């Protein structure tokens, strides 16, 4: 299983703060976003642009093709820049 | 409008350049004499990045009309070291990590040299006030102040050693 956690602004679109999906259905961030877009139409575009993910706490800036291990906790968070 | 011919001594060598009356010495040094170690941070005397010694006194080159340099002796950061040795201030700035980006460094070195020429044994407070005309945005000044104090101590020690030998 993979646990997906939404930021507060995403929650307004998804209506839920987290959900679990079968690891086999979301082996990568790309596949996860596709899955979420099917469930919450339009959310895929939002997640593909301007969002980072944290997989098990590690923030990944450009995560689209990133693998998701079974049992992972995945957070979608706004992209972070710096000075 | 004709340009003014200016003769002066720069870093120990005779130099000549042409300048419009309204040109700043800063622009003349940078553009006519290729001394780009003299930096422009503001052009209004508020940052000290263009500090040079004019007849041994520290001044902002941006606040001097180029023709005023006629007959004067100018020293820029390019004249601080000799061919073999850095000035002690340059050495302590390096050893003390007194620079981050380095844009203010030439101005600080010239202001610090003017201070130590006048006051070889300054207190921390005296250094802080003497360098108040030089802005640094990177370091918080801490390591600059320490490096100037280190250079003073070193120059005094060198002088003592020189005097006793």
């Amino acid at each position, binding site marked *: 299983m993979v646990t997906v956690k939404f930021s*507060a602004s995403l929650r307004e679109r998804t209506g839920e703060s987290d959900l679990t999906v079968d690891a086999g259905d979301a082996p990568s961030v790309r596949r996860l976003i596709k899955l979420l877009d099917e469930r919450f139409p339009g959310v895929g575009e939002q997640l593909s642009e301007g969002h980072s993910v944290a997989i098990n706490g*590690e923030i990944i800036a450009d995560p689209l093709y990133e693998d998701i291990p079974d049992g992972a906790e995945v957070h979608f968070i706004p992209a972070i820049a710096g*000075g | 409008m004709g340009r003014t011919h200016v003769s002066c001594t720069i870093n120990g060598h005779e130099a000549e350049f042409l300048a419009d009356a309204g040109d700043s010495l800063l622009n003349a040094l940078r553009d006519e004499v290729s001394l780009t170690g003299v930096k422009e941070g503001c052009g209004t005397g508020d940052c000290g990045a263009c500090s040079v010694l004019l007849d041994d006194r520290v001044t902002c080159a941006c606040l001097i009309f180029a023709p005023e340099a006629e007959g004067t002796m100018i020293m820029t950061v390019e004249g601080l070291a000799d061919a073999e040795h850095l000035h002690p201030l340059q050495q302590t700035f390096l050893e003390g990590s007194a620079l981050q*980006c380095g*844009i203010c460094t030439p101005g600080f070195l010239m202001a610090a040299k003017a201070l130590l020429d006048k006051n070889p044994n300054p207190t921390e407070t005296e*250094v802080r006030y003497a360098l108040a005309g030089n802005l*640094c945005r990177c370091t918080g*000044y*801490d390591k*600059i102040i320490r490096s100037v104090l280190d250079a003073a101590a070193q120059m005094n020690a060198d002088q003592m050693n020189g005097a006793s030998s």
Partner: protein
Amino acid sequence: MTEDPTTNTGFKWVGTRPIRPDGLDKVTGKARFGADLVLPNMIEAAIARSPHAHARIVSIDTTAAESMPGVQAVITGADFPDLKEAGAKQPDVFQAAKVMARDKVLFEGHPVAAVAAATRQEAQRAVAAIVVEYEVLPHVLTAGAAMADGAPLLHDDLITANVDPAPEASSNVASRALQQRGDLDAGFAAADVVIERNYTTKPVHQGYIEPHAAVADAGQDGRAHLWCSSQGHFDMRSSTANVLAMEPSLINVTPAEIGGGFGGKTTIYLEPIAVLLSRKAGRPVRVVMDRDEVFQATGPTSGSEMRVKIGVTNDGDITAADVFMAFEAGAFPGSPVGAAAMTALACYDIDNFFVEGFDVVVNKPKVAAYRAPGAPIIAFAVEGLIDELARAIDMDPIDLRLKNAAVEGVQAPYGPTHPRIGFVETLEAIRDSDHYRTPVAANQGRGVACGFWFNIGGNSVATVNVHEDGNVSVITGSPDIGGSRASMALFAAEEFGIDVERINPQIADTQTIGHTDVTGGSRVTLATGKVVVEACRELTADMCRRAAKMWDCEVEDVEWVNGHAQHASGTETPLSMAAIAAKAGRTGGPISTTYTENVRGAGAGFSTQLVDVEVDEETGQTKIVRYTTAQDAGKAIHPSYVEGQMQGGVVQGIGWALNEEYIHREDGTLDNPSFLDYRIPVASDLPMIETIVVEVPNPNHPYGVRGVGEVGIVPPMGAIANAIDRATGCRLHDLPMSPVRLLSAINDKNA
């Protein structure tokens, strides 16, 4: 050489303080910064800028300017590709509009035209001869005013993002940021003390001493060469290409030495203008900003209006926090309110919170990143309020923070669970410091505050070459804004086991090295450092293979020790890098490798700071008497430059706290575009800044690095507000805490 960074302290080079490789050039005046380059046949440019905060451009007449002495090229917005018409994304359209106005000017200093002429003076005279007819429009200067009904609109196509459903009408609110968890009402109900305050801050500028500068040389073949001082020449390239609708690789950007950035040199201003003028004039063109242009048209970071409400129990549990923020973005969207929302409560473990922020356009220059963008602004509010709460429940402010501190395993407010972090260690370092253990002088006040910043990784490339003499070049694409060459050299010296003087770090242009992200986000020592380490490791392995060939033995019998390939049997004389390099042609060719990675695993940075102030209660002037900062660096590669980052961040924060602010006139123009009246701290304003480098290694980095550049600027405003309160009994909720403002508060208290 692959020791666990969390335990190994036995480094030979890492952690030492050698002279930086670029130091000599910088103390002798040889280093070439942005404005120092002179090309053969080069001419100079100047920019015509809007005198109005908000106006429609009715017409621009450049005919007089074009016929003036020395003038070689004049451009206006009409000379740039129309990205909107071409269907570009809105951020790209906005970026192009920032560089050169098309239909409207949106802030004083907004470029409307540019001239290239034989001399700068001639260019400036021609600029003065450009006739622009404006229809002046009502302007709006603060976030609150811009959000109000009926406010003048800057853009007619700005739809608030992250609001569901999306609004139909354009407004000045570009987007909304939200962080939320738990049950706010229940949290406040559980509190014994709840305090709510309003806060404001003004825009402040990064204040780098080097004004922006660019030299461009465009050719008839459609290519261009650009020299500029920036925090990331690849970003300069892609942004410039975007604005000019060019293929990025047709532009080669050579990084000049950069005279300070602090985030403000991560974005383009002059670069496309220089390229276009050069193309039109057929000659290299240099353009350098004056200081007033820097203040009027670059940087700053956001002014803000905030409201914070926090509840705490009598024994110090923070039960709930409610945060509202409206940040000025300047003329185009992009304030750091999102990061502010994520960082607002990140030092603490709070179960119930609601953090909402708005990115609001106003008629001021578009904000640029500034050191931990967003975090210092909200930290001023949150850290001040926590101090008020500590006093309300009569608890030591460090104890209150320790009790609620974020630690490993706590879920950060922005989502993920904190890995190993060093926040508590910074609090303890301050608590145990000589400064904290020294009693506060009678006429002084002491304040403490904390800060968090994510730090980031990102894309970096390193090429490492071993020369015939065994010395090494380390080539990266990360501009050195504060001594990072020294860190790269130390990594390589440690990996190879050779003297650091034998390492030559270089920063290559965009044609020579692979794409590298900006020097920002405190990422260079972490990310570029990591690729340097990995490249060096590839080469030590490669040199072991070559040594095996030379010795005709199995590679397993060779190990790398102290700069030499060494045979396990001890029968062979160890081979130095020079010896291996001398035979490189026979063992596989030149010794060189390139390593590339999108580095992740940045470790969050925390800082706790302590300040003693003395206030002249008759003039309202605050003197910083003593200042100590403790920061978790993970691992300090060159401790002097780590300390320098900490000290520099603190002093920028002191300026922000006490005197720095953009002061606008009623007509929307900037009243203080100079270093005289935009008062950054001078040496005589300050004491030494005492540093405590905490090292809780980042397990994701080969040497434990976290990144140190930014978090140091987060706590000072809160710390100083807290100290002033304890010195005077006056709590200020607005920045800057200038003498005028503080004396007024003292008068109110005495009345």
